[in-house]
């Protein structure tokens, strides 16, 4: 199952990183990471609000207080461990990539 996710993610990766292989223009990295940061917080908040993340995945997570997602290094390492985890039909990575692509217009679809 995990390997299948990999294939899906590979495609997203191709789209996302296409800019990096272009040598003529410098990709707007700062802008991209700002949107990606905001998108990740919104996506995780959306999934948590709608009960899509099993409680076991959230126990003792310091970035979640009073059901509110707080950005920080703790969120980055949790996100890494769950990159290929499927929440509400999509991997967390796919959620993050979609929200980043649509930012700042992205809204929680659940």
């Amino acid at each position: 199952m995990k390997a299948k996710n990999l294939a899906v993610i590979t495609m997203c990766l191709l789209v996302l990183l296409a800019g990096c292989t272009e040598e003529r223009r410098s990709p707007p990295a700062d802008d991209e990471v700002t949107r990606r940061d905001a998108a990740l917080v919104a996506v995780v908040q959306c999934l948590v609000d709608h009960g899509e993340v099993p409680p076991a995945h959230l126990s003792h997570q310091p970035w979640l207080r009073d059901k509110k997602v707080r950005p920080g290094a703790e969120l980055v390492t949790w996100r890494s461990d769950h990159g290929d985890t499927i929440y509400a039909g999509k991997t967390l990575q796919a959620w993050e990539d979609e929200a980043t692509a649509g930012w700042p217009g992205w809204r929680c679809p659940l």
Partner: protein
Amino acid sequence: MPGLIAAALDDVRDMDARTTRAYELAREQGWSALSRAPGVPGLTLDRPPSVRLDWEATGQSGNQGKRDAETLAAALAAKNPEEARTALLGLPESLQRHLADEDYQAAFWAGAGPLALRAARALYERTGSALFSAESVSVLRALGASLAAAGQMRVGTGKDRRPLLPDATRAALTANSDPWSVGMLVKYGPEGRSWDSRFLADLTRAMLDARAAGKTIWPPARGPLETDADASRHQRLMAEYDAVGAVLQRAAENGMAARHVLGDQTTGLKYARMLVSDSWHTPGYDPGPFLSSYVHPGGVLPPIGQVDLSAPTAAFLKAAVSAERGTSADAKESAWSVVHIVQATAEFSKLHPGTHLPEEIRGSLLYVAGRYLPDFAQSVNHNFASGALQQGNKSTNPWVPINKLDELEGFFTQALQKPEEFGAFKGLMASRVSVAVAATIHDPSDRNYLREMGGLFGLIQRVENTHHFEGELRVDEEAAKNQMLLATASGGFGALSFSNPFGPGTMAQIFTALGTPALNEAFDTGHALKALKANMDASRHQVFQVEVPVVQGLVDAGAVHPRPNASWVSNGRVIPNAALVDWISLHADTRYAGRSLTDWITEAQTAMRMQQ
């Protein structure tokens, strides 16, 4: 009552010491407790001969320590190296004999402490080519060994337990009144692992603070520097008797001491900023006074004759990140050291655009990157905040450094400068493909190592694009990449067994283990690659680049089971030969761990930007 017991114990110790000495002297005269009497089979007891005891030398060792301290104080107070040397002739032997003797050490350092720390300044030669005579070196060596031994000793029990060295001595060590002399005791003292790590860390901080405050950290200038040759010789003398470097070197040898300094959450960044710097050289000198007024009409010229001193700094940085990965306090300090080094390097990049750090220090930065590759890859897409934490915020997982993307970008901007450095680093990343494949299959979390590596690769490419290297330089880069890949592929894979159960955090350890041999300067770069190239056409060259690591990863993970007689694998190691090319083309659509071989290879190529 306790006083009486202590006195009685002292008496016992004295008597014991004297008895031991008496037997020692008797043995020196050829006596043996058990000897054969002539004509009688078996052993008989032999009466020991009479010996004369030196009651002073075997007296209570504390008294001896006190006396030695007085001798040292008197000798050093004379401020005449000639006299001091004569007065101190017997000191090294006495210090050496009492290295493990707490009573002696306590009495000696209580009596001589602050003065002993300034011994180097009292003993140095005012003329001649060597700064210290052989006798002075032996005094400094003995004092250094004694200081290291005393630094490891503790007295008292329970919550009363404290360092044996008196507060006054510890304060004098860190008070910076004469950092150069303290550095000389460390230089001539024992190897770093013979020191207490906390003690050495305190010393390191004190030296770095003294250097930052502009205190005298260099050996004294002997007489006026009248010629250009004098001035240049003095720079070399400064390098040879570099006190800060001596302490950094010992702390690096110790390892934990370096991690205490840079891994401290409050002060680590401050010291990382001091170390990640282009100031690690002797000050140099103004050549103006040595030029004729015809050539140089006056004014201050830029200093010349600087000697590079970055090697101990570089060793210290490496040691600070070299704890075994895991959940230990040491691993935690190591991870925080990484966070601070990355931050300090990014700051340096920002404050000094266009200035390069010394080669040795940049080498350490690449060592950090190689060792913490999966952690950098994990961090690379976000810019929230930096810090060390346990993977996934679980207390059973290893400590990992997380750095903001901005900081990582500044870090690599400084660490990678030349095309061949980019090449070597990309080769290193490509060589991790097989581990990333195995890790993605086996790690109990849903982490995708291959994709994270792809993100980091993108950052490296962005940094490289800012350099606009010309075509010719790209050839150098490609060569370096292949060399690194070859070195890692031939030296790293197969060294680790993947048959163990994959516990949490195993992957980070495997990455780390594989990174080390590749970043070792000793790897073979030349003829092996040439031989390989001579035998390979373009397509097989490409096979070597990605497909070998992918197949290796699948074999390692147990997803591919080669036939026992397959010639493309030997002892679990995949060999890039014609049989492998055949095998790959025959199995392109076969599914391994849920996806086809072609899919695996394509993803690896994408992550490493290797698609042609």
